[in-house]
């Protein structure tokens, strides 16, 4: 009898937990659904009938967005900017992190403190000095203004440094005894081993720079170098006012690349964030 009662109680517990989780899921997903629903509903039908169901399917909103907004250019700008930032970060941050974790030189401790300090400062705080520098170099309103400030990422250096510290020193020493110069150790040993960490910061870097609105709005004047969020917000302000259908279609198109990327590479993404070095010890 007691076991039976215990079973019933645990079932009620389970049900309760699932209801709470489901409520949370609805709370998270509902705005997303409303965005999709609105984007696929003909503009004059948006506020008629049940707001939660998709009854009048239409692609008019998307047609209008593509017709009126140079969306392909925004996409292209976005990929160029995000891709270049990522490549630049790999080229700069991997060697920097390796040096800070595994080479002995004067000023290493100081270097590490500077990296940590730089991590604590939000980039909005240094926005104006950077703006001044960029304008000195005539880079305002160019792709360079979106790329250069983010190539040296303190966060990436720190993340990679911690990763390198988890690899036994003897692996690098072994490479040295095998006759590899520091440069070749970097190419042949460090880069291949750093892949999980590079994937991790690549994801974080891609998402944050793809979605960034603040910085483009700060250094761009028109949509010549505009990335997707900046371009679309401009478009919303100028052209559409309170036209929700095309607005939501544009918003959907903004998140689409991230969503597709996530669905394709779901497993690698999770493995990357969990960041196992696959090292042997």
């Amino acid at each position, binding site marked *: 009898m007691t076991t039976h009662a215990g079973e019933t109680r645990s079932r009620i517990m389970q049900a309760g937990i699932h209801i709470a989780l489901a409520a949370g899921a609805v709370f998270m997903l509902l705005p997303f659904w409303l965005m999709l629903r609105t984007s696929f509903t003909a503009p004059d039908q948006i506020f008629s009938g049940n707001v939660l169901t998709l009854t009048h399917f239409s692609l008019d909103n998307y047609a209008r967005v593509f017709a009126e907004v140079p969306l392909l250019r925004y996409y292209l700008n976005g990929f160029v900017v995000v891709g270049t930032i990522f490549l630049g970060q790999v080229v700069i941050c991997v060697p920097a992190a390796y040096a800070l974790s595994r080479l002995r030189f004067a000023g290493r401790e100081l270097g590490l403190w500077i990296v940590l300090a730089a991590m604590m400062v939000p980039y909005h705080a240094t926005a104006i000095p950077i703006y001044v520098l960029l304008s000195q170099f005539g880079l305002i309103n160019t792709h360079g203004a979106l790329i250069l400030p983010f190539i040296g990422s303190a966060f990436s250096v720190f993340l990679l440094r911690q990763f390198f510290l988890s690899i036994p020193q003897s692996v690098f020493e072994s490479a*040295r*005894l095998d006759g590899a110069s520091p440069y070749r150790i970097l190419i*042949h040993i460090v880069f291949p081993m750093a892949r999980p960490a590079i994937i991790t910061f690549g994801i974080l870097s891609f998402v944050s720079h793809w979605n960034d609105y603040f910085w483009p709005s700060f250094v761009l004047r028109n949509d010549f170098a505009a990335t997707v969020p900046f371009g679309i917000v401009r478009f919303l302000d100028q052209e559409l006012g309170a036209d929700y259908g095309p607005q939501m279609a544009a918003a959907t198109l903004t998140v689409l690349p991230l969503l597709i990327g996530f669905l394709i590479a779901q497993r690698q993404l999770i493995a990357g964030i969990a960041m196992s070095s696959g090292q042997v010890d």
Partner: protein
Amino acid sequence: MTVHPLATRIGAPTPVAVHNLAKSWPGAQRPVFSELDIDCPAGGITIIVGPSGCGKTTFLRCLCGLDVPTKGEIRFGDQDVTRIDAQHRGVAMVFQNYALYPTKTAFDNIAFPLRMARVGAAETADRVRAAAALTRIEGLLERLPSQLSGGQRQRVGIARAIVRGPSVLLMDEPLSNLDTKLRVEMRAELSALQRELGATTVYVTHDQTEALALADHLIVMRDGKIEQQGAPEEIFRHPADVFVADFLGSMNLLAVRREGEGMVLADGTRVSSLPGAPSSGSFQLGFRAEDAHIGGLAGDRATLPAMVRRSELMGSERLVHLHCGGVALRARLKQAVAPGEHIDLHVHASALHYFSDDGQRAGAVA
């Protein structure tokens, strides 16, 4: 097993010598080691043994160039290599934790030193296969380190070290991460492999069995100093001091002092006679567990009254824990003894060791 000519490109083996070598870390009170003078025989295995922290690993790191000594010189043959960087010193090292490159297959791990030396692809493949044949891992070359067992990983580590045919081969506790059975097997293989390659080998370990089994030249280190060096047999038979005696083969040690005509142990127990004992008023007596017997021992001998505390069956013999003269002793005996029993322990005169109070060897062994 014949050596593939490509796997071993060793000409005449290089002797390795260090002179007055010292290493201290900046700000440290005591040097890691100092005044080291060592001659490693060309083509043989030199084993450095000692407890953790005695400086043996740092010494090895100085030999291969990963650390720079503070003072002294290191010579490989005629060449002074003290200031040559690890990258150019041409030594190979086997690491305790294998230090394999996790993203490379066993083949690429072994090939790495050759690729760094810009050896052609065809020759690289030949030499990797030859080294793999010597270490018996031919079937595992396509695997990643994570897909190999500990013993297999260390075989890859050894193959990577020998593939270039280095004239000097260094090993830093290469067998310590393996389980006991594998360690004994690998020890025998390593010894055979080294004989075949003929590379001058310097091998660091804290395992006295390994040290005695493998060494051509044995060096016992403590606290950054050499306690004794020489042939392993000689060191085992004539340990220079109580530390060496205890570290290699854990010798039983008893304090003895003279009283009138006779001699007594620390707790006042009288001992009849100690052949060859030094003439000083007090000294230490040492003997090994396997040299103790009960009954039926002819010739000059010492006799010690002891009480049995515990007996462990080890197979054909017993390890008996005894109490004698206020200290604990161990003896390996054939006979069964019961706890609490009082026995007379006999040790042949030739198996007795004497040390002065400060631990140095005293008196001669017959």
